[in-house]
């Protein structure tokens, strides 16, 4: 009786471990997918952006935002909003219109990975 119950426990733990491993793997894949942009491809696609935002996203012109080091998912959101018209800007509407989802992710990954003057303010 004792042996059976301990065997049940072992099987139970094994199942639970596999379950947890599955969840961890799932999260890992989801995170990779979210940050799925290819910065090397993004660099190739960024030539048009460079005219205003600088080659590495450190805009020399103060009218245009610095992109270097900005959060990738914020940059993605900005481009999506330019496409949908949620964010209205005559220049960016035209430039964002032809971009695919992959283009947006690649460009965002590229600029997010550059170094520059931009930083997150930390009050603590």
């Amino acid at each position, binding site marked *: 009786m004792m042996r059976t119950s301990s065997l049940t426990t072992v099987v139970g733990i094994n199942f639970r471990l596999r379950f947890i491993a599955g969840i961890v793997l799932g999260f890992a894949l989801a995170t990779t997918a979210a940050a799925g942009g290819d910065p090397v491809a993004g660099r190739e696609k960024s030539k048009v952006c460079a005219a205003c935002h600088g080659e590495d996203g450190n805009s020399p012109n103060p009218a*245009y935002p610095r992109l270097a080091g900005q959060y990738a998912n914020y940059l993605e959101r900005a481009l999506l909003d330019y496409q949908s018209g949620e964010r209205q800007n005559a220049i960016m509407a035209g430039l964002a219109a032809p971009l695919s989802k992959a283009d947006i992710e690649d460009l965002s990954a590229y600029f997010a990975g550059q170094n520059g003057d*931009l930083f*997150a*303010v930390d*009050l603590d």
Partner: protein
Amino acid sequence: MRRIVNALGAVLISLSASTALATGDAEQGRYKAHTCLGCHGAPGYSNAYPTYHVPKLGGQHAEYIVAALNAYAAGQRKHPTMHANAVTLSEQDIADIAAYFAGMERP
């Protein structure tokens, strides 16, 4: 005569407009940015629905921050929280806040 007065008036208006845009006081901006820092002062803080990180503002160009706040106030950028905050700001407030973020030293 009226034409001259009109022309002078136009010059004065454009002068005052460009002056208001040009001068931001970073020290004043530090106090006025208190509300902003609730979200923009916490690295990695996320917007919800849709989910994305609240943008980094330290070291951003002042001129761009001014344009962004004006666009939120005017509804050209649609974000309920940013709209609600931006509409309460005067032109001087916006210039001061922009000067504060633009002039911050990287920690």
